[in-house]
């Protein structure tokens, strides 16, 4: 689906995709889905090769120095593009909200961090808010609960945008959680440093998902999804989990933590893109 006329379709910005380490390592299909959606929105997509991590693990563990060192690499690799887009509110939020804070008071790096922050977006909000996308052409037979990741919701103000686009997916019905604002218990290192507390939180979340009657859960952050899907899988639940980008672009891979997607083509991967 092309961008709507409000987003000046004549312009074709170059977008640098910040893949995120989890997508890179665990679920490349999310990256390819993001590329497909961005191209549908009229963008030229580049994937700077000098990228790995946004620095958040160090930053949140109090290791400001290595977070700064990593951030400098990201800034240098990404500042030359029109936009930076990440299929994650968490990594997007790190760049857009925390980089400026990380370099507060540094004469050279603060302005560079702020400039990069200003053009960095979470994927789905970028498609809707910046590119004016209002619908996609994909199809999935599913009753979906949408999980708002904390950083998407609070740092990147992503809430209505994914719901808007999901409504246009053929065959898909949306259900709301009872407590959509509550953390799923992932929290990066939190889930392995405090496994029992994290488990109580994710168990509440899977119970909430189940009570909606949904057969599928979607979210915009792979960290939350691995946590939720991993818990559902341990509970023996049949509820499927995908990254929202995969569904918007058209599902090509089995659900997270499951080997086969009923009704999906399976496989996925590099050759399947546009």
């Amino acid at each position, binding site marked *: 689906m092309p961008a709507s006329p409000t987003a000046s379709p004549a312009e074709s910005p170059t977008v640098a995709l910040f893949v995120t380490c989890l997508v890179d390592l665990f679920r490349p299909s999310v990256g390819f889905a993001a590329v497909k959606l961005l191209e549908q929105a009229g963008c030229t997509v580049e994937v700077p090769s000098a990228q790995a991590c946004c620095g958040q693990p160090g930053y949140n563990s*109090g290791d400001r120095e290595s977070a700064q060192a990593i951030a400098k690499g990201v800034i240098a690799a990404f500042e030359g593009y029109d936009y930076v887009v990440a299929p994650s509110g968490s990594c997007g939020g790190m760049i857009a909200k925390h980089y400026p804070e990380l370099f507060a008071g540094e004469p050279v790096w603060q302005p560079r961090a702020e400039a990069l922050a200003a053009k960095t977006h979470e994927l789905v909000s970028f498609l809707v808010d910046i590119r004016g996308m209002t619908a996609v052409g994909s199809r999935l037979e599913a009753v979906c609960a949408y999980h708002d990741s904390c950083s998407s919701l609070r740092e990147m103000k992503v809430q209505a945008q994914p719901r808007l686009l999901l409504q246009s997916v053929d065959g898909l019905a949306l259900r709301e959680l009872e407590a959509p604002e*509550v953390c799923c218990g992932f929290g990066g290192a939190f889930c392995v440093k405090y496994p029992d507390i994290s488990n109580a939180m994710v168990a509440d979340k899977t119970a909430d998902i189940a009570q909606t009657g949904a057969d599928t859960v979607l979210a915009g952050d792979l960290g939350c999804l691995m946590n939720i*899907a991993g818990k559902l899988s341990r509970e023996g639940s049949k509820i499927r989990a995908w990254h929202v980008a995969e569904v918007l672009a058209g599902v090509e891979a089995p659900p997270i933590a*499951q080997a086969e997607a009923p009704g999906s083509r399976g496989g996925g991967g*590099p050759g399947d893109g546009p």
Partner: protein
Amino acid sequence: MTELSPARFNEQAAAALKDAPLQRALGNMRVGFIEKRRKAAEKLPEFEALRDAGVAIKTHTLAHLDLYLEAWEQKVVDGGGRVHWARDAEEGRRIVLDICRAASARTVTKGKSMIGEEMHLNPFLEAHGIEPVETDLGEYIIQLRRETPSHIIAPAIHVNKEQVADAFREHHTGLPPDRALDEGPDLLAEARTQLRDRFIAADVGITGANFLVAETGSSIIVTNEGNGDLTQTLPRVHIVLASLEKIVPTLEDATTLMRLLARSATGQEMSVYTTVSTGPRREGDPDGPAEYHVILLDNGRSDLYGTEFQEVFRCIRCGACLNHCPVYGAIGGHAYGTVYPGPIGKVLSPALMGIDAAGKLPNASSFCGRCEEVCPMRIPLPKLMRHWREEEFGRKLSPAAVRRGLGLWAWAVRRPALYRFGARFAIAGMAFLGRRRGHLKALPLAGGWTAHRNLPAPQGGTFHDLWRRRKSNRRRDRR
């Protein structure tokens, strides 16, 4: 019960998760407070503007704290009251004891005071032959149960109704054992009768303070039970326990903050009782104490003043951050092992006890950010927790394995080519192991994860490798 300590946070949290009555009590709390606050905030169109006004008042006060403290002290003294500055809990306790002894006190009634908790006042008074009687219903319940508060505004939130009835039957001897104690009102009525005599017998009344007002020298408390009024007007001596962050310039400022406090705390528009005390009884006053003392406890606070942590002094102790915290909601207040639990406790406790003692707390957060979102005073609690983590990391207090792991990670991700080379193998291995089911049930070094959930298997191949391949395929196709 072994003494609770922040150093044993993990064990205490694990025990709390298995404590069925506690989990039942927490389940009730979570929905109640959150709904009430949401409704109260929605009903007030200018709620966000009110928050800004509250922040502005406190920010201004903190910028001129010395002036306002001096002005306030002068007013208290002019009105015939006394101000005592206590450097730490021990000095605070000593001052209380001296005042009680001078008044030949045998019984002391107490309104709710978190500063009193910081001082560990009750056991100290008991050890010196003075009986403290808590008059706030929640505090009274936990005093009977010999517990500390598990919440800063609802100290007995962890206790179920049946447990209260049990405590009453055990301690209120001389009443018919088969009396009805099933409903809240039964319990309230019984507590009230029990407390009535104690109010009259007390020689000294101790209360906390929600605000100290510089322009008048007043202290203000808000309660829903009216116990504070009786505690401070009936005895001959009134002691107020407070700390520097309670200071506000004017009564007008205090009312602005009170509007925020009640809504954020319990979803009320106003607390039921607001009690202003300004010094001892004057000529012609119908009632009031003969002596009025304020003890201002520092307990490490002035060390934070002027640092990045200063923002925490905006806190008005509404408890909203606790009510909305998923970690607090899972484990309750006692597991923290500190006077202040929840997000505010994670920021305040390392200041009061030292980061080496309380370092586990600021780490125990998923940084979901909901506390900051609901904090009426817009205190950036996650950011301040992160500052404590930085302090801990900088002083090499964080676990060695974590430090080594992070160091290696940071080193590798700054060398993307090398990182990718290593990742390729790790990912290929995991993808192979998980290929049949789509997930792994266990993995070396990932026990924290796989104890409770399966690990989704990688799809195989990193995005970057696949992307590069796709690009070269496209190039070849074009040729």
